[in-house]
């Protein structure tokens, strides 16, 4: 039965293909042996298959060029599609020089298709044989990301493992970070001098992780501020950050047992404009003369303008950002700088809570993996090229595959 059905399908398919070919303008259709300018080029072979790792609705067509591209007057490849269920055909695309594959994104998962590719040479068309029938489908998993998933699971697993083990009371050692130890000192100094502290959580909105990192640190700082009864001034560049920062500070005041001392005006919106915000922050610095300035979040060119102004009023400055290009300016103009990863680790450090500290230990596992992979990769390559070792070559290729992200 099944075989019969297949034969029937094949018949329908071949006849429809022939039908398509007959529809093409006859004067320009040539079979392979009648290629233009009398050259003896072989046939174009076409393969069509469902596009990998997509959400359906796309078929990939690939073909070999026996040499039409090198002929003078070559204008491209024409892709011709037949819907084998309905029998309708249409041209899909003319691809440019040097292209030998094409993703047809205008197909439906409910139909089957067959493709022809024609080389356009001097307004003549050299047709290929039709491809096998193909149907597009969606994939449930992007197989290119297999290694991303595996490595991701290992690192996340390590983080969660250390969080759990810290919860059970395993003691963890963490090295000191100078910038964090300075925070208490800075707040303390502001209290003594009776001056406010200034906090800037970067100039990005809540869709940047650095802003969120800045706010988590704000949580700890605000608690100290509440305990010491210092004033905090936080201008923000984005309204969402304003809302989030208010929640954070309010929570800190409640935790410190002084909810009455909290006031919404501690956080105020200025403007969304980058340099307008900077102009305002500079103004606040020279007029209110805060004793301590914190710049924790994502910063761009304004980093140095703010840090230098802060420096000129003699404030203790603690900065932290994951913007590599801005780090040098903070290092130059601030007393302490949290470099890259330290920004994200800071709130865990400050909280002192075992579970939070555990997560840092987990991230260290990731760093260890990175270092090991880099070293193993280099050693394997060296041996592979020096002694032609098959196994080392295998390791080298595996590593290349693991870390290529498509």
């Amino acid at each position: 039965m099944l075989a019969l059905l297949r034969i029937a399908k094949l018949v329908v398919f071949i006849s429809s293909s022939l039908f398509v070919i007959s529809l093409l303008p006859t004067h320009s259709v040539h079979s392979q042996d009648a290629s233009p300018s009398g050259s003896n080029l072989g046939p174009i072979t076409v393969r069509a298959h469902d596009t990998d790792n997509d959400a359906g609705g796309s078929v990939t067509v690939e073909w070999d060029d026996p040499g039409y591209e090198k002929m003078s007057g070559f204008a491209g490849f024409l892709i011709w599609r037949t819907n084998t269920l309905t029998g309708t055909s249409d041209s899909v695309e003319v691809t440019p020089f040097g292209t030998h594959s094409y993703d047809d994104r205008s197909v439906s998962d409910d139909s089957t298709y067959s493709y022809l590719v024609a080389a356009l040479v001097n307004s003549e068309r050299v047709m290929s044989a039709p491809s096998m029938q193909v149907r597009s489908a969606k994939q449930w998993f992007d197989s290119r990301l297999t290694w991303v998933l595996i490595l991701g699971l290992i690192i996340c697993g390590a983080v969660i493992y250390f969080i759990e083990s810290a919860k059970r009371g395993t003691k963890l050692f963490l090295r000191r970070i100078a910038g964090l130890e300075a925070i208490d000192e800075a707040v303390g100094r502001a209290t003594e001098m009776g001056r406010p502290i200034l906090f800037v959580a970067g100039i990005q909105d809540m869709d940047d992780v650095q802003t969120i990192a800045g706010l988590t640190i704000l949580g700890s700082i605000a608690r100290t501020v509440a305990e010491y009864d210092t004033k905090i001034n936080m201008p923000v560049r984005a309204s969402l950050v304003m809302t989030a920062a208010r929640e954070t500070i309010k929570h800190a005041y409640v935790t410190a047992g002084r909810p009455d001392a909290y006031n919404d005006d501690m956080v105020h919106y200025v403007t969304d404009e980058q340099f307008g915000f900077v102009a305002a922050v500079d103004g606040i610095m020279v007029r209110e003369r805060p004793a301590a300035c914190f710049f924790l979040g994502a910063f761009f060119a304004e980093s140095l303008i703010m840090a230098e102004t802060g420096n000129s009023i003699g404030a203790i400055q603690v900065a932290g950002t994951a913007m590599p290009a801005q780090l040098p300016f903070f290092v130059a103009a601030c007393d302490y700088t949290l470099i890259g990863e330290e920004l994200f680790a800071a709130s865990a450090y400050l909280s002192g809570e075992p579970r939070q500290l555990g997560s840092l230990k987990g991230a260290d596992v990731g760093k260890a993996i990175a270092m090991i992979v880099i070293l193993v990769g280099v050693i394997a390559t060296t041996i592979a090229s020096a002694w032609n070792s098959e196994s080392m070559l295998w390791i080298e290729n595996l590593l290349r595959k693991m870390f290529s992200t498509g």
Partner: protein
Amino acid sequence: MDSAIIGTWLAALLTLGIMSFLYKDNLYYKICEAIFIGISAGLWFITYFWDSLYRIAWIGVVHEGRYVLLGGVVLGVMMLMRLFGKIGWIARWPLAFIVGATAGLKMMVYFTTNAMAQIHGTVNDTMAAFGGSGLYDVVGRIVILIGTVTGLVYFYFSKEHKGLFGGVAKVGTWFLMITFGASFGYTVMSRMSLLLGRIDFLLTDWLKLVK
């Protein structure tokens, strides 16, 4: 008077006002700052209004029937509940949505484009180092290898920077210092051209002191 002339004068006066801050905070700067804040906050609100609220939310939902966007509108309205004391706590829902989305999305983005790609780059570079290229390249790539690994050691939190490990971390900080110095030195000179543009505007377009 020609509107362009008024415009040039206005622009020049504002330019001088901002520059006067270099001397010290003063009345002139404060006025410019106030104008800057007011105008720019208005400008951004208008841009958000037409681009997000009108074009995405209104056109998207009403004209294009993309009802999935209504979810965003609902969350947005919840945000406004902050204005009403009693049910203000509901504003935390959209906030939670945003923090969750940022954490989830950025975690994967950083993992693939930062971590994986940089490890891949380092392995690739250093692998190629032994592929028979000149001494210059080999040295460069070995330096990249040492720098990357020692730099990572510096960021290692759960081991004290003492003894051999501390020495390696020290080398790591040197590499970080080279990176910082390089970026700094790199930027210093290009910042000068920014100011040149402003001074040129003042001298040429406004004062007409320079041809």
